[in-house]
């Protein structure tokens, strides 16, 4: 009552000025709402237009399918699909190749983004696709048990591959450093040296595939008990444990860490893109684990034959060169790397005395203990 009376009195006292104030407030409100609506609609209309039509021909755009064409939907991770990733170039190359080979039939690659294996599998249920890119040797096990997949039909001699999951690139995992900053490690045991105190950037094995690779590597070399002791001794030398490779590598490039768990090909990015020759990979006397990237065709594909064609294309030397130069990983098809720095790394890999880089078998890892036990080890050590 008091409030209503007060308000009424106020209105009566102030007369017209309050009415004007209310009207101007209403006008301002209406103007603002109209402006906001125009901004949102404009963004939606222009944004939608930019992801279709002629602009879609440019290599850098979203990768939506051309109108009137048969569309092959490919699910992949974001850095694969980005302007600087291999996706747009591969799309352009495949569509052009197809147009030249079969002029009457238009084919278009439509990219969709999905990160991490769990989300990838869940998103596949919402957006059925013809090809999925983004599993590694650990997450493919989860994918195999989650649903059915179509055989890709390629030769059985493909490196690291079977009849459904085919590898399209890979890289040895180890430690990267900058020349002149530290004396690099030569083995897993060398990482325990006091000269690396507080200098090593690792990734959490629970959320990062390379991080898990490192842990599995230690367990394979040392056994479960030996691994526990090793990790306890390693703790003082660990600068940080990041949730992902990109966070960890960011700490390294910032100079906060002097040694980072990464790929043998990482220094090549700095050499060729940043013209920085300081970055090096430290090969160990023992075999390094390898990270393998897989693609696979779901069993509910619509354009299954086209998906198989695209799969064959991904393994061809021209596509492998694009993957090599944009993903900064080693090609599965070694022909693509001949005469390049990537080829030098491939040539260094082997078991013989002439080879400086030994690799563990990524698809039959000799880790006798299961994933849960390995991760429990990590949690018990409490980094």
């Amino acid at each position, binding site marked *: 009552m*008091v*409030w*209503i009376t*007060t*308000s009424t009195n106020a209105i009566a006292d102030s007369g017209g000025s309050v009415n004007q104030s209310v009207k101007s407030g209403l006008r*301002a*409100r209406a103007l*603002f709402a109209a402006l*906001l609506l125009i*901004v*949102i609609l404009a*963004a*939606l209309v*222009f*944004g*939608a237009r*930019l*992801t279709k039509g002629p*602009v879609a021909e440019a290599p*850098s*755009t*979203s990768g939506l399918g051309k109108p009137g064409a048969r569309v092959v939907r490919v699910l992949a991770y*974001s*850095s694969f*699909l*980005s*302007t*600087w990733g291999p996706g747009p170039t591969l799309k352009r190359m495949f569509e052009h190749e197809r147009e030249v080979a079969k002029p009457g039939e238009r084919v278009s690659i439509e990219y*969709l*983004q999905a990160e*991490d*294996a*769990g*989300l990838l*599998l869940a*998103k596949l249920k919402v*957006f059925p696709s013809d090809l999925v890119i983004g599993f590694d040797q650990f997450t493919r096990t989860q994918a195999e048990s989650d649903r059915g997949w179509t055989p890709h039909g390629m030769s059985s001699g493909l490196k690291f591959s079977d009849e459904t999951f085919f590898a399209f690139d890979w890289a040895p995992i180890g430690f990267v450093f900058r020349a002149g900053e530290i004396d690099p490690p030569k083995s897993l045991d060398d990482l325990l040296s006091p000269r690396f105190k*507080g200098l090593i950037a690792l990734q959490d094995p*629970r*959320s990062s595939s390379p991080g898990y690779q490192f842990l599995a590597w230690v367990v394979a070399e040392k056994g479960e008990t030996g691994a526990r002791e090793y990790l306890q001794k390693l703790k003082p030398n660990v600068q*940080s*444990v990041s*949730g992902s*490779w*990109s*966070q960890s590598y*960011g*700490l390294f*490039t*910032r100079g*906060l860490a002097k040694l980072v768990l990464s790929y043998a090909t*990482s220094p090549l990015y*700095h050499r060729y*893109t*940043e013209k920085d020759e300081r970055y090096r990979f430290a090969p160990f006397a023992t075999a390094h684990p390898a990270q393998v990237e897989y693609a696979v065709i779901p069993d509910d594909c619509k354009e299954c034959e086209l998906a198989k064609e695209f799969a064959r294309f991904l393994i061809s030397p021209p596509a492998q060169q694009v993957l090599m130069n944009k993903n*900064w990983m080693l090609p599965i098809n070694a022909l693509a790397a001949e005469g390049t720095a990537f080829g030098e790394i491939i040539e260094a890999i082997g078991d013989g005395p002439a080879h400086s880089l030994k690799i563990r078998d990524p698809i039959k890892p000799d880790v006798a203990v299961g994933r849960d036990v390995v991760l429990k080890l*990590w*949690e018990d050590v*409490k*980094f």
Partner: protein
Amino acid sequence: MKNNRANLYGRSVLWGLAILFLLPYVFSLVLSKGRLVLPSDFLNLVWRSWLQATLSGALATAFGLLGAGFLLRVSHLRTSLWEGVALFPAVIPSGVIVLGLMDLVPEWRGLWAIAAAHTLISSGFIAVVLARLVRERMGASLELAWVEGANRLLMWRRGVLPRLFPELFRVWLTIVVSSLGSFSVPLLLGGSQAYTFEIAIHHAIRLQGAWGIAASLSLFQLFLLVAFLFLFQNLRSGQTPTTIRSGESASRAGVARILGFSWGAPFLILGTAVSLFSLVRDPFLGWRQLQSTGLLEHRDVLLVALQGSVATAALSGCLTALLLLLAATSFPGPRSRRWMNAYVAPSVAITGFATLALGWGAPPSFNWDVARISLGAALLFAPVIWRLRWAEEVSRLEGAVAVAQTLGAGSSLIISRILLPRLFPAAFWSGGLVAFWMWGDYAIGSIVASRNMTLGLLAKSLMESYRLEAAALLLLAVLVLGAVTYRLFTWGGSSVHR
């Protein structure tokens, strides 16, 4: 008759909102196929999560309160500028703050480091919220005390803090909830000892596809917080103003003169300083990295991302404001308000995935991505802002609404003449805050979007491709644009309030 219609309208809206906000939980239950499983180290998870969350909340609230003291000091014309500065750390990826902290104090790890990072991220936001609360509600009575000879310390001790206590508790709880959902900060600064619900849910969904674990953890978190909040629901603000104009009649200059203190500035800008230190390390390298991506040549990608950010930010802000207004104008009774105050959104992963139900079966498109991201943002942020500000606003208006209903006013009259004029400024501010947040977002987008269609997602891709400095440059641009958006919204709110 009119009251019955008001009740029907209110109940319909409340039920609609309840269904909308509970959908992500239902979605996770459906995906889990009813198989709820707790992780084996569940008790360890609860203990560690709560320890770092409660410490983070306490430290952030303390810093925020001191920062609010400075915000009260600044002139009316510069308030939005300083608020933008204060909100800066809250809208950028938390990894930026962590990098800055690691640069400054390389050896610092553990529980206190995590709390410090959360404080740097959140204290500016808390300062903005608290300063607005004090400015809007406590002016006149405190001005009177000042005239009567009370000094600043006495006014804070006897006047402001006792009345602010429930808000401080809500703010603390908000930070506790957000810390429970923190991911990269505990991982980077605490290692395997830092364990939060978000880390556990992230592992369950994104890596293992174990929806049973994710659903059970989310539900447990909800029940725990609801129970906690219900226990403390009896806290009320201090004396309810006897006239509606108690907060309005004091000028901002008057309140600032009474309560503000300049030495609160470091607490306000510390998070921003650390963020800028981290972002502006090597802009030249960042520029070269951007050139190497081809983004500067193929500007259409940047344009799409810019438009995606504009659309998601604006739509998220509008949706959030709309949901909050709907909730506030649905005449919630005391019991409904308890539930509304206690509700907590599930993790980003679950909420983001639930939004894929929107437009189910439709081919992926820019517009559907914008709609889903915006809906996800509204579902995540609306409960936070409700608890921070709207709960008390609605509680204060209860008396006026009751009087109007007794006098026979209909629901439409009450809404249009009593509720909306009072709530519009809060709605615009809330929308602006969410819009600011969404400029830098990639958490929801990385789950929902079918392509890199916002600047935040582009920055994330850059970070994953060795191009950290380029991502930092992009984030700086995002911050400026986000601040402009926030200013536009708050301008809209101040226009209404005139």
